[in-house]
């Protein structure tokens, strides 16, 4: 009996030693076959049980089961270690140069012209304005006549306007779209709109002039709309567009479609109004033209100027972009040199 138990312990020690010395998972599999299979020596030793007394059976059985359990546990532990090591080796082998280029998923760029249009549109849309896009080809009637620029007015000179025929022309201002909206409303509905878009003038192209250029013009028509509403609206716009600290000032000016008319200066963002090269030392930069809608315009577009009043304003897109981004030449916007456009991103 004692020798049988001794034999069990012997096998146990041998097995544990072999497990410890196993080189790889294959070796471990062989060990498992020898010591833990159904027909292993330990299992066959169970045959001796029959010859043992009840008392001895207990002790011998326990010794065998303990030995099996110990081998099983050690084997499992060893196998786990080896698998972990093998995986580790595989992962190390799979390591790559993380500094090589990734898949190109970069967003494209944007001509700064559109950044300005989008921003101005977003600001006014958030202030409850509608965005109306007119057409580039307009009639004389909508581009001039309805906006209080009668025939023979110098602004209608052939020198300044591209004509297609006597009645049709390339719009010189996006406010033509305002006239369309007013006429469409038949003098009834209030209006709060901006119209962004391209305009055309018969200017030779140079650093600051372009025969095509972008403009955003706004119009508000309702009862009791005054210059105070214009001033408040433009102040809000300027702060949202150019920063909280910006201020505006109004200067008397002249446009045929507004009376009174004003030029709107914005305090220079670069020097904070102290005076610098950008604002030519004045601390102010001229950005917008605006005014209270001329009663003639309301009348001609079907609104009763005794009941309705309104204000209008206009801003040049490239001019804002040039000031904001330090663009030296208006022609760059139309050249689309990718090296220029690459500097501009927008989400």
């Amino acid at each position, binding site marked *: 009996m004692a020798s049988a138990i001794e034999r069990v312990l012997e096998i146990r020690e041998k097995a544990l030693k072999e497990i410890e010395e196993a080189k790889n998972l294959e070796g471990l599999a062989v060990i498992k076959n020898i010591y833990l299979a159904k027909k292993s020596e330990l299992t066959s030793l169970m045959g001796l049980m029959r010859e043992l007394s009840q008392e001895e059976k207990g002790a011998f059985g326990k010794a065998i089961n303990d030995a099996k359990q110990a081998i099983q546990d050690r084997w499992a532990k060893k196998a786990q270690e080896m698998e972990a090591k093998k995986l580790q080796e595989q992962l190390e082998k799979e390591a790559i140069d993380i500094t090589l*280029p990734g898949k*190109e*998923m970069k*967003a*494209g*760029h*944007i*001509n700064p012209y559109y950044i300005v249009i*989008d921003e101005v549109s977003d600001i006014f849309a958030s*202030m*409850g304005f*509608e*965005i109306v*896009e007119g057409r*580039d*080809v307009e009639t004389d009637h909508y581009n001039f006549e309805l906006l209080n620029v009668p*025939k023979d007015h110098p*602004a209608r*000179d*052939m020198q300044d306007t*591209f*004509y*297609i025929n006597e009645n049709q022309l*390339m719009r010189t201002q996006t406010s033509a779209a305002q006239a369309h909206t007013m006429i469409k409303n038949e003098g009834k509905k*209030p209006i*709060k709109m901006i119209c962004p*878009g391209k305009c*055309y003038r*018969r200017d030779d192209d140079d650093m600051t002039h372009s*025969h*095509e250029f972008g403009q955003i013009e706004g119009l508000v028509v*309702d009862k*009791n709309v*005054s*210059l*105070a*509403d214009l*001033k*408040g609206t433009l*102040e*809000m716009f300027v702060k949202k567009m150019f920063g909280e600290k910006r201020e505006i*000032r109004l*200067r*008397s*000016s*002249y446009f045929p479609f507004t*009376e*009174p*008319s004003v030029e709107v200066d914005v305090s220079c963002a670069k020097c904070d109004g102290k005076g610098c090269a950008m604002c030519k030392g004045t601390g102010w930069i001229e950005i917008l033209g605006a005014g*209270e809608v*001329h*009663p003639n315009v309301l009348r001609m577009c079907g609104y009763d100027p005794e009941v309705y009043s309104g204000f209008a304003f206009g801003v040049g897109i490239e001019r804002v972009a040039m000031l904001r981004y330090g663009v030296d030449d208006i022609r760059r*916007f*139309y050249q*689309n*040199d*990718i*090296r220029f*456009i*690459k500097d501009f991103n927008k989400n």
Partner: protein
Amino acid sequence: MKVSLKWLNQFVKVDDIDPEVLASKMTFAGVEVEEVLTLAKATGLTIGHIIECEEHPNSDHLHVLKVDEGKYGIHQIVCGAPNARKGLKVIVAKEGAVLPEVTIVKSTIRGVESDGMCCALYELGVDKKYLSEKQVSGIEELPEDAPVGIDNVLEYLGLDDSILDLKLLANRSDMNAMENVAREVGALLNRPVSFPTYKVEGKFKSEYTVASKTQKCPLFGMREIKGIKTKPSPKWMQEILTAEGVRSINNVVDIGNFVMLLTGQPLNMYDADKLPAKELVAVDDVEGPFVAMDDKTYNLEKNDLLISSGGEGMCLGGIMTSKACEVDENTTHVLLEAAVFNGASIRRTSNRLGLASESSARFVKGINPDQNEYVMEVTCALLKDLCEATAASETVIYDTLNHDKKVVNTSLSYINGRLGTNFSMEEVVEVLSRDHLAPVVDGDSITVGIPPYRIDMKEGCDVSEEVIRLLGFENITSRLPASNPEVKGGYTPKQLNKQAVRRFLRYSGLSECLTYSLIDEKHKDSFCYLDNGENYVLMNPLTDDRKVLRKNTLYSLLSVASYNIAHQEKDLAIFEISDVDSKAKASTHLSIVLAGISHERGDLVKKPYDFYDAKGLVEGILSLLGIKENRYRIARIDTDKAEFHPGRSAAIYVGRDLVGVMGELHPAALKEFGLGKSCVGVELDLNYLLDLKVGQDKASIPPRFPSMSRDLALVIGKGVNYADIKNDIKKTDRLVENVSVFDVYEGEHIGAGKKSLAISISFRSADKTLTDPEVSSVMDKIISALRIKYNAEVRS
């Protein structure tokens, strides 16, 4: 208009105000001062008397002068002016004098000591364009009585003046007259304004007549003046004209210019003795040559305004007198014309002939029609005073204008309502009074009289402008317009979709461009597929390059690619969305250009852009807009133009409408645009796609039963489209859920003219789990259908 502050000061006191401050006040009130100029800028001047003039020993043109500078003593000055001579009184810049270009120091010139400099006026900063040739070529010759040794030389010369250079807005034509500038400044500063009065006694009755046969001349006033002597103008007048930027010619011409500057009324003078008849008639129906006083011949057209006498053209109305009746130094007998001409007519003629003058500019902008008599009285008084005229006639006039005083009725509440202000009646009345509008108040209502020079003022809104521009815009308290539920505001769904397309393309790596809508005639039909209407063509283009309004945009974007490629930026992905117009339709197009190499991982993984890049973007846009695959189809482009590669391009149709084209460029087009080896172009009728009605998204319930999948390898003719195979498989049985291609092969292992497609088909039933035999039976149907229709060789 140039405003001499010295002259202005004769009418309203301004000599106690910094010119810059005055300029800023005027600018904010709507009379923009572009620049404040000083006539001359020099210190350390005096007047000297040349008492000796010797040749310089070491020079063939220099003189060595001894100049007596009175209390400053006698100095030796080396001078190069050819007119330097003994006895001459000259301007001397003493040692230490600062002139615009130079500071005077004692020096030695070719071995001779020189202490000071004798000056020409331009050396003091006077613009050469106001000076005669003689004044520019030598030193200034002062009169014999010039006081030697004085300090205030600029004052003596009348050059101690500042000039406000006005940039006039179209509505303030009245600012073209000094009298009105004085009235404006008086109103701004709240100071009294006064003008001298002119009166000519003993006027005779002229035998000459005036008439007008055209509405372009509604008023023609004339006076006859006799016994004129032409000579240089007095110094005070020369000084004013110089300050105003007008060159002094002689007393007669100068008076004409002076009165025009003073009153804004252009004048013309005729040598009466040279007129063919004792009449002046305004006509507008003469054609043919006209020889003007500049010795050039101009071709008159019908509608040009002409002043004729005895049937001969004497003056191109408001623009230029004829050679035939020009006033010259021998003239003694003058007809003075002060008329009102139609500005538009003058502008047309002046633009056509390229002839513009101070006179024509004033007519074009509009003049005061009510001051004719006054202006001629001033002129005649000056002609008598300065030209020794012996007699002036009464006015002979043709006048069809209504000279009733203009009155505007408005009210305090209207003015405050328009401005958004709370001005009191006292404030408004005060400001309108100093603006010379003579307000009369009755309760809330205000009646103002419009001065005749304010031809811009017509109604209440004009009065409100006067109030705010003179009181200042800082009086307006900002507020925001009340919101009105009738205006929805914000972007429309269509605008939001357009923005989404732009974002999608930018996020896909494309850059957004902006190109000119005007293109050259040669390319008006380049890459035109979506709109074949007739182009709009400009009547008056500036250049041939910008003559036609484009109706498609891809050509412009290809030009952008070509520009960049020429500047070593060879790999591009760009797009533009732009409105397009033709006589047939107006739309908004999207074009895309992919040129060169697509860098999928820098230079590590790259491939040339091809048709499928374009197709992917187009499908992405369509899916973004909710346009399902069954709404559109693609087909080969039906064209014989060598623009797209015929085998690698496609047209996109919705129903029968062509809505887009896309594809690799034809080798010929690649060459023409300098686009390298590979370039893909797309143009979509974006407006059409944005307007297309699409169904609302709705949830689909995930299927309950599993799907089964089978693969199929087909060998078919190369020309067979995958899309046809796919459709046919789908149509075979409703258990077919999806068909996808996972391999395409052409090459040596299959026959020439053949290709092999490997296709995966998935099957699903909504009612149960499918069994192998069920799927196999459908597969058999599919295989046999493909065999029959496409003669397909099927390998499983």
